[in-house]
């Protein structure tokens, strides 16, 4: 029974992801005084792309074709780690938050390789920018998660979530506030959102993620788009699980699970609104300012670790 619920959690993360993306896009459109596309548009886009013919550049090698698959596989693997409606997940190892960070990194690495392999100039540019952003974002990501892990004295994500569920919400902990600041900034960088990268841009010289996928078409592009949607959903779910997990069901009964799903949908909606507000309110940072942005995240996460060790609260 538990395994069924955990499997359903992972499927939830995978299947609802395009909806999350659609909702965010729609909210942004509304904020910018447009009507916007329907929230189900990403699903129809995926279906369309899966049916189309795939064209590969003649100069590319097998890496170009494997890269989307590896990316999708990596992201799907990671969904097995994250608890959504229950404080349990399909895979629960000690130290699995390390694995989470680095499997995601593996996916990004292969995407960059594929972009380089495609042979276009914009692919190369996107790949090199992606390398900068992801290398700078890795440290704060890890430090933020580590700070909370040390505070909870648990090494697995599920354990941390279980610990957080027992804490008092109003006794605001400095470590959590700092780690949340750092992880929120990293989340924007990892998922390729403003102010680090504009997902809706059509100007190639401003692209990071979009630049890498310019050469892809057909099912490969579908896999990549789906993978990035899943990553967005995943990162939001991770932040919710680490910082505001209250509402997750304790037992296996259908009523409590249904209630937990409802709470989760509510929190997801709030996050979607916040994300669309942030994306509409800030302008994209110029590339030389992105290290400053991520440097602030690094400082916040370093401070979180210092607070964990020194103040313990």
């Amino acid at each position, binding site marked *: 029974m538990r395994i069924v619920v955990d499997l359903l959690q992972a499927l939830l993360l995978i299947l609802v992801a395009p909806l999350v993306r659609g909702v965010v896009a729609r909210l942004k459109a509304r904020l910018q005084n447009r009507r916007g596309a329907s929230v189900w548009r990403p699903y129809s886009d995926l279906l369309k792309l899966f049916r189309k013919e795939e064209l590969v550049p003649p100069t590319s090698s097998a890496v170009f074709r494997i890269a989307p698959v590896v990316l999708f596989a990596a992201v799907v693997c990671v969904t097995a780690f994250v608890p959504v409606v229950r404080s349990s997940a399909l895979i629960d190892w000690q130290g699995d938050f390390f694995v989470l960070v680095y499997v995601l990194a593996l996916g990004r690495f292969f995407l960059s390789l594929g972009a380089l392999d495609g042979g276009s100039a914009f692919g190369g540019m996107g790949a090199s920018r992606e390398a900068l952003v992801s290398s700078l974002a890795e440290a704060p990501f890890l430090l933020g998660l580590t700070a909370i892990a040390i505070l909870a004295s648990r090494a697995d994500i599920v354990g941390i979530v279980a610990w957080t569920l027992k804490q008092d919400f*109003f*006794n*605001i*902990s*400095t470590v959590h*506030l*700092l780690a949340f*600041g750092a992880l929120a900034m990293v989340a924007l960088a990892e998922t390729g959102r403003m102010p680090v990268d504009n997902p809706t841009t059509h100007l190639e010289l401003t692209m990071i993620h979009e630049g890498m996928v310019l050469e892809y078409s057909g099912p490969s592009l579908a896999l990549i788009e789906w993978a990035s949607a899943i990553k967005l959903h995943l990162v939001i779910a991770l932040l919710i699980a680490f910082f505001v997990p209250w509402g997750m069901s304790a037992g296996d009964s259908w009523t409590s699970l249904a209630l937990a799903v409802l709470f989760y949908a509510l929190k997801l909606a709030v996050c979607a609104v916040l994300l669309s507000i942030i994306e509409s309110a800030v302008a994209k940072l110029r590339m030389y300012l992105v*290290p*400053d*942005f991520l*440097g*602030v995240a*690094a*400082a*916040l996460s*370093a*401070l979180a670790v*210092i607070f964990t060790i*020194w*103040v313990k*609260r």
Partner: protein
Amino acid sequence: MGLIGIATAKILSSFSVFLFLTIILLAVARRISTSVLLFGLQSAVITADVIATAFQEKLPEVYVVGVLVFAIKVMVIPRALFVLTKRLKTVRDVQASTTPTQSVFIVAAIIYLSYAAVHSYAGAIHVSDDALAAAVSVILTGSFLMVSRKKALMQMLGLLVLENGIFLAALITTFGMPLVIEIGIFFDILMGLLLMGIFTFRISDTFEHLDVSKLRRLRG
């Protein structure tokens, strides 16, 4: 205990977290208006702490101080600074001499130092470590802002943050000084700001810029 009692206890135990947040954000703020807004928020957090202290210690004088802090530091001073910024028609950038990353690391070091410095005193005076460390870090951040920002308005703001920290330290340790003295101190701060405002106008008139690092005629 009642709802207000619980709220008071929560405020008193966690206000230092929000103060740390405001000083970190002050370190990375790139525009003067953002910094003024953060100063207003910081003063609002301090007001909450004042009112909570007044409620818990049952000191009616401290309520008056709380109202004064709110009226002066949350309403009047930020609004006056906004008006001043607009009137001076100056560049909105803060003109920091350190990058945001360096500033955040410096503020992080400041927070760490405050905790280290306060550790021995807090136990002796029976106040919480967090609160006193928050006060000292606000003081040190105010000094850092004054030193690293080159705009005259930012030096004024750094001074205001410094005085916020000193006021907070007084509040935490002694629940406020005699009322007459507090009123005198507020009056002095207001007059000081008025004079600094006059001087910034004179600087911008005489020098046509507000960059105090360029005021280097008198040396030796």
